Protein backbone atom coordinates (compact mmCIF):
# COMPACT_ATOMS: atom_id res chain seq x y z
CA UNK A 1 0.00 0.00 0.00
CA UNK A 2 1.05 3.58 -0.57
CA UNK A 3 0.43 6.79 1.24
CA UNK A 4 -0.09 9.78 -1.02
CA UNK A 5 0.37 13.22 0.53
CA UNK A 6 -0.75 16.08 -1.66
CA UNK A 7 -0.33 19.71 -0.76
CA UNK A 8 -2.87 21.69 -2.75
CA UNK A 9 -4.47 25.10 -2.93
CA UNK A 10 -7.13 25.92 -0.38
CA UNK A 11 -10.01 26.25 -2.79
CA UNK A 12 -9.14 23.13 -4.80
CA UNK A 13 -10.10 20.71 -2.04
CA UNK A 14 -13.71 20.17 -3.11
CA UNK A 15 -12.79 19.55 -6.74
CA UNK A 16 -10.11 17.05 -5.80
CA UNK A 17 -12.37 15.30 -3.32
CA UNK A 18 -15.21 14.99 -5.80
CA UNK A 19 -12.95 13.80 -8.61
CA UNK A 20 -11.45 11.16 -6.33
CA UNK A 21 -14.86 9.94 -5.24
CA UNK A 22 -15.83 9.56 -8.89
CA UNK A 23 -12.71 7.46 -9.24
CA UNK A 24 -13.96 5.30 -6.41
CA UNK A 25 -11.48 6.59 -3.84
CA UNK A 26 -13.67 7.20 -0.83
CA UNK A 27 -11.31 7.87 1.98
CA UNK A 28 -8.96 10.68 2.79
CA UNK A 29 -7.73 12.81 5.62
CA UNK A 30 -7.27 16.55 5.23
CA UNK A 31 -5.03 18.86 7.21
CA UNK A 32 -4.68 22.64 7.33
CA UNK A 33 -1.06 23.54 6.62
CA UNK A 34 1.04 26.58 5.95
CA UNK A 35 3.30 26.32 2.95
CA UNK A 36 6.61 27.91 2.14
CA UNK A 37 8.09 27.72 -1.33
CA UNK A 38 8.40 29.57 -4.59
CA UNK A 39 5.01 31.19 -4.24
CA UNK A 40 5.60 34.54 -2.58
CA UNK A 41 3.68 35.52 0.49
CA UNK A 42 2.60 39.05 1.39
CA UNK A 43 3.43 41.81 3.85
CA UNK A 44 1.23 43.21 6.59
CA UNK A 45 1.66 46.47 8.48
CA UNK A 46 0.35 47.23 11.94
CA UNK A 47 0.87 50.77 13.17
CA UNK A 48 4.01 51.05 11.10
CA UNK A 49 5.48 47.67 12.00
CA UNK A 50 5.90 45.52 8.90
CA UNK A 51 5.62 41.75 8.89
CA UNK A 52 6.60 39.63 5.90
CA UNK A 53 4.25 36.67 5.87
CA UNK A 54 6.07 33.99 3.89
CA UNK A 55 3.66 31.17 4.58
CA UNK A 56 0.69 30.54 2.37
CA UNK A 57 -2.32 28.59 3.66
CA UNK A 58 -2.64 25.24 1.91
CA UNK A 59 -4.53 22.01 2.35
CA UNK A 60 -2.72 18.73 2.74
CA UNK A 61 -4.56 15.60 1.66
CA UNK A 62 -3.47 12.19 2.85
CA UNK A 63 -4.74 9.22 0.90
CA UNK A 64 -3.83 5.64 1.56
CA UNK A 65 -4.38 3.44 -1.45
CA UNK A 66 -3.39 0.15 -2.93
CA UNK A 67 -0.36 0.05 -5.23
CA UNK A 68 -2.55 -0.44 -8.30
CA UNK A 69 -4.68 2.57 -7.42
CA UNK A 70 -1.67 4.80 -6.90
CA UNK A 71 -1.35 6.07 -10.46
CA UNK A 72 -5.06 6.74 -10.70
CA UNK A 73 -4.99 8.78 -7.55
CA UNK A 74 -1.97 10.78 -8.62
CA UNK A 75 -3.41 11.50 -12.07
CA UNK A 76 -6.70 12.60 -10.62
CA UNK A 77 -5.02 15.01 -8.25
CA UNK A 78 -2.74 16.36 -10.96
CA UNK A 79 -5.72 16.93 -13.22
CA UNK A 80 -7.96 18.64 -10.72
CA UNK A 81 -5.53 20.57 -8.51
CA UNK A 82 -3.62 22.22 -11.32
CA UNK A 83 -3.96 25.91 -12.17
CA UNK A 84 -0.54 26.33 -13.81
CA UNK A 85 0.33 29.14 -11.41
CA UNK A 86 3.21 28.92 -8.97
CA UNK A 87 1.91 27.44 -5.74
CA UNK A 88 -0.13 24.54 -7.07
CA UNK A 89 1.70 22.31 -4.65
CA UNK A 90 3.25 18.85 -4.50
CA UNK A 91 2.45 15.21 -4.31
CA UNK A 92 4.61 12.98 -2.11
CA UNK A 93 4.44 9.19 -2.13
CA UNK A 94 5.64 6.96 0.70
CA UNK A 95 5.43 3.25 1.24
CA UNK A 96 3.03 2.01 3.89
CA UNK A 97 3.85 -1.07 5.91
CA UNK A 98 0.44 -1.75 7.27
CA UNK A 99 -2.99 -0.26 7.77
CA UNK A 100 -5.70 -1.25 10.21
CA UNK A 101 -9.37 -0.31 10.51
CA UNK A 102 -10.00 0.47 14.13
CA UNK A 103 -13.68 -0.41 14.04
CA UNK A 104 -13.11 -3.98 12.83
CA UNK A 105 -9.44 -4.59 13.27
CA UNK A 106 -9.20 -5.52 9.59
CA UNK A 107 -5.72 -5.00 8.23
CA UNK A 108 -4.03 -4.33 4.89
CA UNK A 109 -6.18 -3.73 1.83
CA UNK A 110 -9.47 -4.42 3.57
CA UNK A 111 -8.81 -1.62 5.98
CA UNK A 112 -9.14 1.12 3.41
Amino acid at each position, binding site marked *: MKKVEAIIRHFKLDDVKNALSEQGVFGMTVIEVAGYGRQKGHT*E*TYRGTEYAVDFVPKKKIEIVCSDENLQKVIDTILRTAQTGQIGDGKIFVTNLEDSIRIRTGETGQDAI
Partner: protein
Amino acid sequence: MRTYFLRGLLACALVGLIATQFLVTSVVAQTTTEASPEVSEPREVVPVEAGNTNEVEVPEEEAPGLDSGDNAWMLTSSALVLFMTAPGLAMFYSGLVRKKNVLGVMMQCLFLMGLMTVVWSLWGYTLSFGGDHPYIGNMEFLFMENVQPAYDAELGEPVTPMHGTIPEYTFMLFQGMFFIITPALICGAFAERMKFSAMAVFSILWGTLVYCPLCHWVWDGGILAYGEPSSLAGGALDFAGGTVVHISSGISALVCAIFVGKRLGYGHDDMRPHNLTYTTLGAAMLWVGWFGFNAGSAGAADALASNAFAVTHFSAAAGAVAWALMEWIQRGKPSVLGCASGAVAGLVCITPAAGFVLPMPALAMGAAAGIVCYYTCTVLKQQMGYDDSLDAFGVHGVGGTLGAVLTGVFATRNVMGGEPIGLYEGGGVSLLIGQVVAVLVTVAFSVFATAFLLKLIDVLIGLRVTQESEIRGLDISEHGEEGYIFS
Protein backbone atom coordinates in the same frame (compact mmCIF):
# COMPACT_ATOMS: atom_id res chain seq x y z
CA MET B 1 -27.85 38.41 -17.16
CA ARG B 2 -26.57 41.64 -15.70
CA THR B 3 -27.90 43.81 -18.53
CA TYR B 4 -31.11 41.84 -18.60
CA PHE B 5 -31.61 42.68 -14.98
CA LEU B 6 -30.72 46.30 -15.35
CA ARG B 7 -33.18 46.63 -18.19
CA GLY B 8 -35.81 45.04 -16.01
CA LEU B 9 -35.15 47.40 -13.17
CA LEU B 10 -35.03 50.50 -15.31
CA ALA B 11 -38.26 49.35 -16.91
CA CYS B 12 -39.96 48.91 -13.56
CA ALA B 13 -38.55 52.26 -12.58
CA LEU B 14 -40.13 53.88 -15.61
CA VAL B 15 -43.40 52.16 -14.86
CA GLY B 16 -43.00 53.63 -11.42
CA LEU B 17 -42.68 57.15 -12.76
CA ILE B 18 -45.62 56.80 -15.11
CA ALA B 19 -47.78 55.18 -12.48
CA THR B 20 -46.87 58.04 -10.20
CA GLN B 21 -47.92 60.63 -12.74
CA PHE B 22 -51.15 58.80 -13.32
CA LEU B 23 -51.95 58.32 -9.68
CA VAL B 24 -51.03 61.84 -8.76
CA THR B 25 -53.42 63.31 -11.33
CA SER B 26 -56.12 60.74 -10.67
CA VAL B 27 -55.91 61.32 -6.96
CA VAL B 28 -55.78 65.10 -6.90
CA ALA B 29 -59.56 65.47 -6.70
CA GLN B 30 -59.88 62.86 -4.01
CA THR B 31 -56.94 64.27 -2.12
CA THR B 32 -58.30 67.78 -2.16
CA THR B 33 -61.75 66.54 -1.21
CA GLU B 34 -60.93 64.13 1.61
CA ALA B 35 -57.27 63.75 2.10
CA SER B 36 -56.17 67.34 2.25
CA PRO B 37 -58.75 68.66 4.72
CA GLU B 38 -57.66 66.00 7.11
CA VAL B 39 -54.05 66.83 6.63
CA SER B 40 -54.40 70.58 6.55
CA GLU B 41 -55.87 70.51 10.05
CA PRO B 42 -52.90 71.31 12.29
CA ARG B 43 -54.08 69.13 15.16
CA GLU B 44 -53.69 65.91 13.22
CA VAL B 45 -50.48 66.85 11.57
CA VAL B 46 -48.75 67.34 14.85
CA PRO B 47 -48.12 63.71 15.67
CA VAL B 48 -46.97 63.21 12.11
CA GLU B 49 -44.49 65.96 12.50
CA ALA B 50 -43.43 64.44 15.73
CA GLY B 51 -42.06 61.95 13.27
CA ASN B 52 -38.59 62.21 11.87
CA THR B 53 -39.13 65.64 10.37
CA ASN B 54 -37.80 69.14 10.42
CA GLU B 55 -41.15 70.92 10.36
CA VAL B 56 -41.59 72.60 13.67
CA GLU B 57 -44.61 74.86 13.52
CA VAL B 58 -43.69 76.82 16.65
CA PRO B 59 -43.06 80.42 15.61
CA GLU B 60 -39.50 81.54 16.35
CA GLU B 61 -40.36 84.51 18.58
CA GLU B 62 -41.95 82.36 21.22
CA ALA B 63 -39.93 79.18 20.85
CA PRO B 64 -40.31 76.66 23.67
CA GLY B 65 -37.40 76.30 26.04
CA LEU B 66 -35.01 73.36 25.99
CA ASP B 67 -36.56 70.27 27.62
CA SER B 68 -33.78 68.37 29.37
CA GLY B 69 -35.73 65.11 29.26
CA ASP B 70 -36.27 65.33 25.51
CA ASN B 71 -32.65 66.27 24.93
CA ALA B 72 -31.46 63.44 27.17
CA TRP B 73 -33.51 60.96 25.18
CA MET B 74 -32.45 62.32 21.80
CA LEU B 75 -28.76 62.30 22.73
CA THR B 76 -29.16 58.75 23.97
CA SER B 77 -30.96 57.85 20.76
CA SER B 78 -28.18 59.37 18.68
CA ALA B 79 -25.67 57.21 20.53
CA LEU B 80 -27.88 54.17 19.99
CA VAL B 81 -28.14 54.75 16.25
CA LEU B 82 -24.38 55.08 15.92
CA PHE B 83 -24.15 51.90 17.98
CA MET B 84 -26.23 50.25 15.26
CA THR B 85 -23.64 50.86 12.55
CA ALA B 86 -20.77 49.67 14.68
CA PRO B 87 -20.57 47.44 16.60
CA GLY B 88 -24.08 46.40 15.49
CA LEU B 89 -24.07 46.23 11.72
CA ALA B 90 -20.33 45.62 11.62
CA MET B 91 -20.82 42.39 13.56
CA PHE B 92 -24.04 41.39 11.82
CA TYR B 93 -22.49 41.76 8.38
CA SER B 94 -18.92 40.69 9.03
CA GLY B 95 -20.03 37.41 10.55
CA LEU B 96 -21.72 36.49 7.27
CA VAL B 97 -18.70 36.74 5.02
CA ARG B 98 -15.73 34.42 4.75
CA LYS B 99 -12.93 34.80 7.26
CA LYS B 100 -10.63 36.38 4.69
CA ASN B 101 -12.98 39.35 4.24
CA VAL B 102 -14.05 40.00 7.82
CA LEU B 103 -11.97 43.16 8.21
CA GLY B 104 -13.03 44.41 4.81
CA VAL B 105 -16.61 44.53 5.99
CA MET B 106 -15.82 46.01 9.37
CA MET B 107 -13.66 48.63 7.71
CA GLN B 108 -16.55 49.71 5.52
CA CYS B 109 -18.69 50.33 8.59
CA LEU B 110 -16.00 52.03 10.66
CA PHE B 111 -14.63 54.15 7.85
CA LEU B 112 -18.11 55.28 6.84
CA MET B 113 -18.69 56.39 10.43
CA GLY B 114 -15.87 58.82 9.82
CA LEU B 115 -16.38 59.71 6.19
CA MET B 116 -20.14 60.24 6.16
CA THR B 117 -19.96 62.25 9.36
CA VAL B 118 -17.49 64.66 7.79
CA VAL B 119 -19.71 64.98 4.72
CA TRP B 120 -22.76 65.51 6.91
CA SER B 121 -21.07 68.24 8.91
CA LEU B 122 -19.98 70.09 5.79
CA TRP B 123 -22.87 69.92 3.33
CA GLY B 124 -24.98 66.84 4.03
CA TYR B 125 -27.17 68.30 6.73
CA THR B 126 -27.95 71.52 4.93
CA LEU B 127 -28.80 69.72 1.70
CA SER B 128 -31.19 67.52 3.66
CA PHE B 129 -32.82 69.93 6.06
CA GLY B 130 -32.02 73.46 4.88
CA GLY B 131 -34.94 75.67 3.89
CA ASP B 132 -38.16 74.37 2.40
CA HIS B 133 -37.59 74.11 -1.31
CA PRO B 134 -39.59 71.08 -2.53
CA TYR B 135 -36.62 69.35 -4.18
CA ILE B 136 -33.45 70.05 -2.22
CA GLY B 137 -32.17 71.80 0.89
CA ASN B 138 -30.59 75.24 0.76
CA MET B 139 -27.33 76.46 2.30
CA GLU B 140 -28.63 77.73 5.64
CA PHE B 141 -26.79 75.03 7.63
CA LEU B 142 -23.63 74.94 5.50
CA PHE B 143 -20.60 74.12 7.70
CA MET B 144 -22.93 73.97 10.72
CA GLU B 145 -23.94 77.60 10.46
CA ASN B 146 -27.20 78.17 12.38
CA VAL B 147 -26.70 74.83 14.07
CA GLN B 148 -23.76 75.76 16.25
CA PRO B 149 -24.22 78.33 19.02
CA ALA B 150 -23.25 81.96 18.38
CA TYR B 151 -22.31 84.71 20.82
CA ASP B 152 -25.09 87.23 21.08
CA ALA B 153 -23.58 90.63 21.87
CA GLU B 154 -26.82 92.06 23.26
CA LEU B 155 -27.62 89.18 25.57
CA GLY B 156 -23.93 88.95 26.29
CA GLU B 157 -24.13 85.17 26.11
CA PRO B 158 -24.11 82.40 23.52
CA VAL B 159 -27.36 81.42 21.86
CA THR B 160 -27.99 77.89 20.64
CA PRO B 161 -30.44 77.45 17.74
CA MET B 162 -33.35 75.29 18.84
CA HIS B 163 -35.36 72.63 17.07
CA GLY B 164 -38.57 72.42 19.07
CA THR B 165 -37.64 71.46 22.62
CA ILE B 166 -34.14 70.26 21.70
CA PRO B 167 -31.12 72.06 20.26
CA GLU B 168 -30.80 72.02 16.46
CA TYR B 169 -27.47 70.36 17.29
CA THR B 170 -29.19 67.32 18.71
CA PHE B 171 -31.53 66.95 15.77
CA MET B 172 -28.59 67.31 13.38
CA LEU B 173 -26.64 64.64 15.26
CA PHE B 174 -29.55 62.22 15.34
CA GLN B 175 -30.15 62.64 11.61
CA GLY B 176 -26.43 62.37 10.95
CA MET B 177 -26.39 58.87 12.36
CA PHE B 178 -28.94 57.85 9.72
CA PHE B 179 -26.64 59.29 7.09
CA ILE B 180 -23.96 56.85 8.24
CA ILE B 181 -25.92 53.64 8.42
CA THR B 182 -27.78 53.97 5.13
CA PRO B 183 -24.76 53.61 2.84
CA ALA B 184 -23.32 51.08 5.28
CA LEU B 185 -26.37 48.92 4.64
CA ILE B 186 -25.68 48.97 0.90
CA CYS B 187 -22.21 47.55 1.52
CA GLY B 188 -23.89 44.23 2.23
CA ALA B 189 -24.64 43.84 -1.46
CA PHE B 190 -21.12 44.09 -2.86
CA ALA B 191 -19.27 42.65 0.13
CA GLU B 192 -16.20 40.50 -0.55
CA ARG B 193 -15.42 41.97 -4.00
CA MET B 194 -15.75 45.76 -4.13
CA LYS B 195 -12.71 48.02 -4.20
CA PHE B 196 -12.42 50.00 -0.99
CA SER B 197 -11.70 53.17 -2.93
CA ALA B 198 -14.77 52.64 -5.11
CA MET B 199 -16.88 52.04 -2.01
CA ALA B 200 -15.67 55.31 -0.47
CA VAL B 201 -16.32 57.40 -3.57
CA PHE B 202 -19.68 55.76 -4.13
CA SER B 203 -20.75 56.45 -0.56
CA ILE B 204 -19.90 60.15 -0.76
CA LEU B 205 -21.74 60.58 -4.04
CA TRP B 206 -24.67 58.38 -3.11
CA GLY B 207 -25.08 60.13 0.20
CA THR B 208 -24.99 63.54 -1.41
CA LEU B 209 -27.01 62.87 -4.53
CA VAL B 210 -29.45 60.19 -3.38
CA TYR B 211 -29.83 60.30 0.38
CA CYS B 212 -29.94 64.06 0.89
CA PRO B 213 -32.65 64.73 -1.71
CA LEU B 214 -34.77 61.79 -0.55
CA CYS B 215 -34.40 62.87 3.05
CA HIS B 216 -35.46 66.39 2.06
CA TRP B 217 -38.44 65.18 0.07
CA VAL B 218 -39.82 63.05 2.87
CA TRP B 219 -38.80 64.82 6.07
CA ASP B 220 -38.28 68.44 5.20
CA GLY B 221 -41.45 69.39 3.41
CA GLY B 222 -40.34 68.10 0.03
CA ILE B 223 -42.40 66.42 -2.67
CA LEU B 224 -43.05 63.28 -0.61
CA ALA B 225 -43.72 64.94 2.74
CA TYR B 226 -47.06 64.03 4.23
CA GLY B 227 -49.71 66.72 4.20
CA GLU B 228 -47.75 69.21 2.15
CA PRO B 229 -49.88 70.81 -0.61
CA SER B 230 -46.98 70.31 -3.02
CA SER B 231 -46.63 66.61 -2.24
CA LEU B 232 -47.24 63.87 -4.77
CA ALA B 233 -50.55 62.13 -4.01
CA GLY B 234 -50.63 63.83 -0.62
CA GLY B 235 -47.27 62.54 0.36
CA ALA B 236 -46.37 59.56 2.51
CA LEU B 237 -46.00 58.77 6.18
CA ASP B 238 -42.48 57.65 6.97
CA PHE B 239 -41.85 57.80 10.68
CA ALA B 240 -38.24 56.67 10.89
CA GLY B 241 -37.02 55.89 7.41
CA GLY B 242 -38.85 53.16 5.54
CA THR B 243 -38.38 54.97 2.25
CA VAL B 244 -35.45 57.24 3.05
CA VAL B 245 -33.28 54.58 4.67
CA HIS B 246 -34.41 51.07 3.89
CA ILE B 247 -36.04 51.18 0.46
CA SER B 248 -33.38 53.53 -0.90
CA SER B 249 -30.52 51.42 0.44
CA GLY B 250 -32.19 48.10 -0.33
CA ILE B 251 -32.96 48.96 -3.94
CA SER B 252 -29.55 50.54 -4.48
CA ALA B 253 -28.06 47.40 -3.01
CA LEU B 254 -29.80 45.28 -5.61
CA VAL B 255 -28.52 47.48 -8.41
CA CYS B 256 -25.01 47.22 -6.94
CA ALA B 257 -25.21 43.45 -6.65
CA ILE B 258 -26.20 43.15 -10.30
CA PHE B 259 -23.79 45.78 -11.51
CA VAL B 260 -20.74 44.55 -9.62
CA GLY B 261 -21.53 40.96 -10.50
CA LYS B 262 -21.26 37.73 -8.57
CA ARG B 263 -18.42 36.73 -6.30
CA LEU B 264 -15.85 34.39 -7.81
CA GLY B 265 -16.97 30.82 -7.30
CA TYR B 266 -20.47 31.86 -6.29
CA GLY B 267 -22.63 28.74 -6.11
CA HIS B 268 -19.55 26.50 -6.17
CA ASP B 269 -17.15 27.51 -3.42
CA ASP B 270 -17.84 27.19 0.27
CA MET B 271 -19.27 30.58 1.22
CA ARG B 272 -20.72 29.71 4.60
CA PRO B 273 -20.82 32.53 7.14
CA HIS B 274 -17.49 32.39 8.95
CA ASN B 275 -18.76 33.57 12.33
CA LEU B 276 -22.47 33.32 13.07
CA THR B 277 -21.83 34.25 16.67
CA TYR B 278 -20.97 37.74 15.43
CA THR B 279 -24.06 37.81 13.26
CA THR B 280 -26.28 36.81 16.17
CA LEU B 281 -24.72 39.33 18.55
CA GLY B 282 -24.88 41.98 15.85
CA ALA B 283 -28.57 41.33 15.30
CA ALA B 284 -29.21 41.73 19.03
CA MET B 285 -27.27 44.99 19.02
CA LEU B 286 -29.27 46.21 16.03
CA TRP B 287 -32.44 45.37 17.92
CA VAL B 288 -31.33 47.43 20.92
CA GLY B 289 -30.03 50.28 18.80
CA TRP B 290 -33.23 50.37 16.78
CA PHE B 291 -35.06 51.69 19.82
CA GLY B 292 -33.05 54.86 19.33
CA PHE B 293 -33.68 54.76 15.61
CA ASN B 294 -37.47 54.53 15.89
CA ALA B 295 -38.37 55.89 19.31
CA GLY B 296 -35.83 58.65 18.81
CA SER B 297 -37.68 59.65 15.67
CA ALA B 298 -40.41 60.99 17.93
CA GLY B 299 -37.98 63.83 18.59
CA ALA B 300 -38.89 63.80 22.27
CA ALA B 301 -39.29 61.47 25.26
CA ASP B 302 -43.06 61.66 24.99
CA ALA B 303 -45.89 59.16 24.70
CA LEU B 304 -45.28 58.88 20.97
CA ALA B 305 -41.73 57.73 21.68
CA SER B 306 -43.09 55.05 23.99
CA ASN B 307 -45.51 53.93 21.29
CA ALA B 308 -42.72 53.73 18.73
CA PHE B 309 -40.53 51.84 21.18
CA ALA B 310 -43.26 49.31 21.91
CA VAL B 311 -44.31 48.56 18.34
CA THR B 312 -40.66 48.34 17.31
CA HIS B 313 -40.00 45.77 20.00
CA PHE B 314 -43.11 43.76 19.13
CA SER B 315 -42.48 43.77 15.41
CA ALA B 316 -38.91 42.60 15.86
CA ALA B 317 -40.11 39.83 18.14
CA ALA B 318 -42.79 38.67 15.71
CA GLY B 319 -40.32 38.75 12.83
CA ALA B 320 -37.77 36.66 14.70
CA VAL B 321 -40.34 34.05 15.64
CA ALA B 322 -41.98 34.01 12.20
CA TRP B 323 -38.79 33.44 10.21
CA ALA B 324 -37.63 30.75 12.64
CA LEU B 325 -40.98 29.01 12.43
CA MET B 326 -40.94 29.10 8.62
CA GLU B 327 -37.61 27.30 8.67
CA TRP B 328 -38.82 24.91 11.31
CA ILE B 329 -41.81 23.97 9.19
CA GLN B 330 -40.03 23.89 5.86
CA ARG B 331 -36.74 22.22 6.72
CA GLY B 332 -37.28 20.84 10.18
CA LYS B 333 -34.86 23.12 11.99
CA PRO B 334 -35.05 26.73 13.11
CA SER B 335 -31.70 28.43 12.59
CA VAL B 336 -29.99 31.20 14.50
CA LEU B 337 -29.32 33.02 11.27
CA GLY B 338 -33.00 32.80 10.42
CA CYS B 339 -34.06 34.07 13.81
CA ALA B 340 -31.62 36.97 13.57
CA SER B 341 -32.66 37.81 10.01
CA GLY B 342 -36.31 37.71 11.01
CA ALA B 343 -35.72 40.14 13.85
CA VAL B 344 -34.04 42.58 11.49
CA ALA B 345 -36.80 42.13 8.91
CA GLY B 346 -39.39 42.95 11.56
CA LEU B 347 -37.42 46.01 12.62
CA VAL B 348 -37.13 47.24 9.04
CA CYS B 349 -40.83 46.73 8.36
CA ILE B 350 -42.05 48.67 11.40
CA THR B 351 -39.66 51.58 10.84
CA PRO B 352 -41.95 53.72 8.65
CA ALA B 353 -44.97 52.87 10.81
CA ALA B 354 -43.55 53.11 14.32
CA GLY B 355 -45.28 56.39 15.16
CA PHE B 356 -48.61 55.59 13.55
CA VAL B 357 -49.69 52.05 14.43
CA LEU B 358 -50.76 50.07 17.51
CA PRO B 359 -49.09 47.00 19.06
CA MET B 360 -51.29 44.25 17.60
CA PRO B 361 -50.89 45.43 14.00
CA ALA B 362 -47.18 45.70 14.80
CA LEU B 363 -47.11 42.00 15.63
CA ALA B 364 -48.80 41.33 12.31
CA MET B 365 -46.38 43.52 10.39
CA GLY B 366 -43.39 41.86 11.99
CA ALA B 367 -44.68 38.40 11.22
CA ALA B 368 -45.47 39.39 7.64
CA ALA B 369 -41.98 40.79 7.21
CA GLY B 370 -40.45 37.62 8.61
CA ILE B 371 -42.32 35.45 6.14
CA VAL B 372 -41.99 37.64 3.06
CA CYS B 373 -38.28 38.33 3.54
CA TYR B 374 -37.72 34.65 4.23
CA TYR B 375 -39.11 33.87 0.79
CA THR B 376 -37.13 36.62 -0.88
CA CYS B 377 -33.83 35.52 0.61
CA THR B 378 -34.34 31.81 0.10
CA VAL B 379 -36.63 31.16 -2.87
CA LEU B 380 -36.68 34.33 -4.94
CA LYS B 381 -32.95 35.04 -4.71
CA GLN B 382 -32.10 31.52 -5.85
CA GLN B 383 -34.42 31.86 -8.82
CA MET B 384 -33.27 35.28 -9.94
CA GLY B 385 -29.66 34.35 -9.35
CA TYR B 386 -28.24 37.73 -8.35
CA ASP B 387 -25.53 37.69 -5.69
CA ASP B 388 -26.64 40.08 -2.95
CA SER B 389 -23.96 38.79 -0.59
CA LEU B 390 -25.64 39.72 2.68
CA ASP B 391 -29.23 40.16 1.48
CA ALA B 392 -29.32 43.93 1.86
CA PHE B 393 -32.09 43.95 -0.76
CA GLY B 394 -33.90 40.89 0.49
CA VAL B 395 -34.24 42.29 4.00
CA HIS B 396 -34.10 46.09 3.71
CA GLY B 397 -35.51 46.64 0.23
CA VAL B 398 -38.34 44.17 0.55
CA GLY B 399 -39.00 44.70 4.24
CA GLY B 400 -38.97 48.46 3.82
CA THR B 401 -41.41 48.35 0.94
CA LEU B 402 -43.73 46.05 2.83
CA GLY B 403 -43.60 48.38 5.82
CA ALA B 404 -44.28 51.49 3.77
CA VAL B 405 -47.34 49.90 2.21
CA LEU B 406 -48.68 48.42 5.44
CA THR B 407 -48.32 51.82 7.06
CA GLY B 408 -51.06 52.92 4.69
CA VAL B 409 -53.17 50.05 6.01
CA PHE B 410 -52.59 50.21 9.76
CA ALA B 411 -51.88 53.89 10.47
CA THR B 412 -54.48 54.94 13.02
CA ARG B 413 -55.95 58.02 14.66
CA ASN B 414 -55.57 56.20 17.96
CA VAL B 415 -51.96 57.21 17.78
CA MET B 416 -52.05 60.15 15.39
CA GLY B 417 -55.37 61.72 16.24
CA GLY B 418 -57.56 63.39 13.64
CA GLU B 419 -59.89 61.63 11.20
CA PRO B 420 -59.63 57.92 10.48
CA ILE B 421 -56.57 57.61 8.25
CA GLY B 422 -55.39 54.07 7.55
CA LEU B 423 -57.31 51.71 5.27
CA TYR B 424 -57.93 49.30 8.15
CA GLU B 425 -59.80 51.79 10.32
CA GLY B 426 -61.75 53.08 7.34
CA GLY B 427 -59.58 56.00 6.38
CA GLY B 428 -59.92 55.15 2.73
CA VAL B 429 -57.18 54.45 0.18
CA SER B 430 -55.77 57.96 -0.13
CA LEU B 431 -52.97 57.33 2.35
CA LEU B 432 -52.27 53.94 0.83
CA ILE B 433 -51.92 55.54 -2.58
CA GLY B 434 -49.60 58.17 -1.15
CA GLN B 435 -47.47 55.42 0.34
CA VAL B 436 -47.34 53.45 -2.90
CA VAL B 437 -46.44 56.53 -4.89
CA ALA B 438 -43.65 57.36 -2.47
CA VAL B 439 -42.32 53.81 -2.79
CA LEU B 440 -42.38 53.96 -6.58
CA VAL B 441 -40.68 57.34 -6.67
CA THR B 442 -38.01 56.16 -4.24
CA VAL B 443 -37.41 53.00 -6.22
CA ALA B 444 -37.23 54.80 -9.54
CA PHE B 445 -34.92 57.48 -8.21
CA SER B 446 -32.64 54.99 -6.43
CA VAL B 447 -32.34 52.75 -9.46
CA PHE B 448 -31.48 55.54 -11.87
CA ALA B 449 -29.12 57.38 -9.58
CA THR B 450 -27.30 54.31 -8.33
CA ALA B 451 -26.89 52.82 -11.78
CA PHE B 452 -25.50 56.11 -13.00
CA LEU B 453 -23.05 56.46 -10.12
CA LEU B 454 -21.81 52.89 -10.49
CA LYS B 455 -21.27 53.34 -14.20
CA LEU B 456 -19.36 56.55 -13.55
CA ILE B 457 -17.12 55.04 -10.87
CA ASP B 458 -16.57 51.91 -12.93
CA VAL B 459 -15.23 54.06 -15.75
CA LEU B 460 -13.15 56.29 -13.50
CA ILE B 461 -11.50 53.89 -11.03
CA GLY B 462 -13.17 50.53 -11.46
CA LEU B 463 -15.55 48.87 -9.04
CA ARG B 464 -14.06 45.50 -8.47
CA VAL B 465 -10.80 44.16 -7.05
CA THR B 466 -8.58 41.91 -9.14
CA GLN B 467 -9.25 38.18 -9.23
CA GLU B 468 -6.10 37.52 -7.27
CA SER B 469 -7.10 40.02 -4.59
CA GLU B 470 -10.55 38.51 -4.36
CA ILE B 471 -9.11 35.01 -3.93
CA ARG B 472 -6.60 36.15 -1.32
CA GLY B 473 -9.30 38.10 0.47
CA LEU B 474 -9.88 41.82 0.96
CA ASP B 475 -8.32 41.92 4.42
CA ILE B 476 -4.87 41.24 3.05
CA SER B 477 -5.21 42.69 -0.42
CA GLU B 478 -7.07 45.89 0.41
CA HIS B 479 -5.92 46.58 3.95
CA GLY B 480 -2.76 44.53 4.52
CA GLU B 481 -4.06 42.99 7.73
CA GLU B 482 -5.56 39.76 8.99
CA GLY B 483 -8.64 39.46 11.15
CA TYR B 484 -7.70 36.54 13.34
CA ILE B 485 -4.23 35.24 14.08
CA PHE B 486 -4.90 32.26 16.32
CA SER B 487 -1.89 30.07 15.68
